[in-house]
């Protein structure tokens, strides 16, 4: 059974069709890449999966539940974690506190007014930080971290509610090639260890072909190809789309 089933979703903004009738599935333990040139509708599609946008038609099922009309936080509670294109962490907290913050939300203890946050869930937080290799920096302020470390912290935060599915929006944007591979290898390892599924959007073709099990390609709001990386690489339609935009050869991104 697949973890995530996307069935014929569409979305338009003020009459412009951003996504038209896209369907695909993410299987258990699978890493799926959603790619396409700029303006292909990746982000819109991605945001419909995590609840930030609501699909005009079609449906999204996660783990057997219809999540098409649910809010980001409801979807999160069902076990969908996510990371952002620009890492979203809490800059004014320490690394450990960032994870503790998430854990408090997982355990629905946000309204507590007395016991300090930093006294709760310390071990749980440290375990998660260890999983991403951030435990040695647990007491540092988040705002002074190197960007690669912020990305790893964000991953730890996304894992805090033991998700079955991880949505990653351009996970390697703004990173040096070496950091990219480290991050994606880490992700691959976590997928194995935790039995996760991953859906990520990506610009860098290197990353996609090296780390994805399945690739879905979009262009102008439509799905134009899906399959294993080797097939996609040879697909003439995909080549045309990418060569047309010139992005296919591009291997590094200008970061934020």
């Amino acid at each position, binding site marked *: 059974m697949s973890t995530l089933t996307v069935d014929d979703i569409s979305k338009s903004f003020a009459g412009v069709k951003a996504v038209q009738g896209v369907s695909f599935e993410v299987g258990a333990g699978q890493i799926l890449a959603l790619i396409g040139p700029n303006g292909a509708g990746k982000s819109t599609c991605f945001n419909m999966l*995590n609840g*930030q946008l609501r699909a005009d038609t079609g449906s999204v099922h996660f783990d057997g539940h219809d999540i098409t009309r649910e809010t980001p*936080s409801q979807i999160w509670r069902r076990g969908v974690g996510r990371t952002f294109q620009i890492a979203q*962490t809490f800059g004014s907290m320490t690394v450990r506190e960032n994870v503790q*913050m998430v854990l408090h939300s997982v355990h629905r*203890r946000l309204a507590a007014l007395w016991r300090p*946050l930093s006294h709760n869930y310390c071990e749980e937080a440290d375990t998660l930080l260890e999983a991403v290799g951030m435990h040695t920096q647990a007491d540092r302020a988040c*705002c002074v971290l190197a960007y690669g470390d912020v990305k790893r912290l964000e991953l730890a935060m996304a894992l*805090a509610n033991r998700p079955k599915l991880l949505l990653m929006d351009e996970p390697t944007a703004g990173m040096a090639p070496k950091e990219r591979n480290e991050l994606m290898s880490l992700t691959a390892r976590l997928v194995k260890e935790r039995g996760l599924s991953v859906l990520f959007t990506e610009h860098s073709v290197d990353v996609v072909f090296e780390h994805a099990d399945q690739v879905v390609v979009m262009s102008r709001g439509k799905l134009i190809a899906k399959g294993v990386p080797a097939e996609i690489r040879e697909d003439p339609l995909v080549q045309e789309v990418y060569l047309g935009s010139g992005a296919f050869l591009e291997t590094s991104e200008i970061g934020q």
Partner: protein
Amino acid sequence: MYDASTLFAQLLNGLSYSSTLFLVASGLALIFGVTKIVNFAHGSFYMLGAYIALTVTNALPTTGFGFWGGVVIAALVVGAIGCLIEVTILRRIYQAPEVFQILVTFGLVLVFQNLIYEFWGPDEVLAPRVPGLKGAVTIFGERIPQYNIALIFVGPVFLGLLWWLTHRTRWGRLIRAATQDREMVASLGVNQKTLFTAVFFIGTFLAGLAGALQIPKESANLQMDINIVVEAFVIVVIGGMGSIMGAFLAAVLVGVINAFGVLFFPQAVSVLIFLVMVLVLVFRPNGLLGGRMVAQRPGDLSIDQPFRLPTRAMKQAMLAAVLALALLPLVLPLYFEVIMTEVFILAIFAGSLHFLLSVGGIVSFGHAAYFGLGSYAAALVATRLGLPMAAGVLAAMVAGAGGGLLFGWFCTRLKGVYLAMLTLAFAQILFTLSIQMVSVTGGDNGIVGLTRPSWLNSHMAYYYLALAAAVLATRLMRRALYAPFGFAFRAGRDSLARSAAIGIDTARIQWGAFVLSGAFAGLAGALMAYHRGSVFPTDFSVSTTVDALVMVLVGGVQSVSGPLIGALSYHFVSVELIRNLADYWRLILGLFIIVFVLGVPQGIVGAFMNRFGKGER
């Protein structure tokens, strides 16, 4: 009711008033749009325009040419002064958080007030009527002054000029581009500094022009600045921050509503404008024509440092400090005992503001609302119901929390400057009501005659009560700050997207913070009411809020102990200045605020910690 000719005449009156409002507001909107500066000193440029125009038109021959020439010269001079201020002061705070900008420009307000008084003296001066436009025209049997008719056209003319400037010139397109994305313009290789200075020139020129055009209608006086600036802000907010067309629509709306309000509800005119603003913001959170606000990350103000739990040594130091304060009355003269009592009460108030501002990044620019609700609740419970002080204090906290509940519901739907201005609007509504609802609030005479229980009658007893309350309230607010609630609140400030992605309902957490903060501000209000034995509408006033903001700033926005240190230093400085330098205290206080924000943005505690603390940078 009224006949059509009266209604039409009233429409013209409203439009004439709109022109003045538009000139001031468009300059404000332009400056905000491009530089993102919340220029509270805009009213000062308006006032300056009026005074300079008086001097210039006096020197020129009393002909039509003399008047209009004088008006233009005055506006140009104001624009030049605006440039000077931009280059020397404001340029340094473009990256700073809004609250710092508000404070610096408020410092400028004080400086201008004092300087204008020094230059032109205290007398109100009315300019002669404009040659050529002295009389009235009769429209449908109603007489309307020619000058007012002329003013009606000034607004649209300048709207047209500004439109031409921003749409038909390269330079104007840059302004528009900068309004949307400041960084992008910088990357285009445009000299951003020159652009900003030029924009500031136009903005202050317009303000000066509006002031200069006002002199045939109104005598130049030293209250002009404050009277116009709040209204101008309301218009810019209604129109949408940064939108000139929006400012025009809002100015017309406000001008006309005001004119008909005078006809139909003369008692309520002063709150009408704020009610309009609340209504507009409820339905259009970005104003009539405002685009989405891109949240700006503050620059290098060490705003992202974590709040560290106090170490053992720090706890001991705090205990020692409290003990020292407890022993102080034994050596202090009575007067300083009284001042220290006020310091403790203000520390609670500043602490409640600090909670919203520093923890959650919410600029509560109408924080006096909760302080005033608290003081009035305490006073009403005591004088109307005859209940003892404890009941009054409790009622005050409930009233403050209730205010937070109500206003928070509106405010948490908004962000940034809109939120700040909406909080201000609520405080102004309460301020106005407290003056006008004489039967309940005693009007501007307030409520006097609160008596404390006999065991609290001595200054020393009340000193200890205030100290205990400050220690307790500070401790409670600190617990909340370090607790999951405080972190969830801070999480919303740091990253809305991440908060939403991990199931934090930021709006609801913020709402809770408004309630909590309101309750403590209400407590401070009640303690102040019993300290003075009286309450007044000034409890709701802008200056009460600004005082608290300055205290938080002086102490250090990111310092947990900032409010107390800030209250101590600022209260002493301002009280001593007023006492010893009656004629120059505004000048010195204004300069103090400006220099402080520019020089020590991290506040006293922050500066101390940077120098001596071991905190990670």
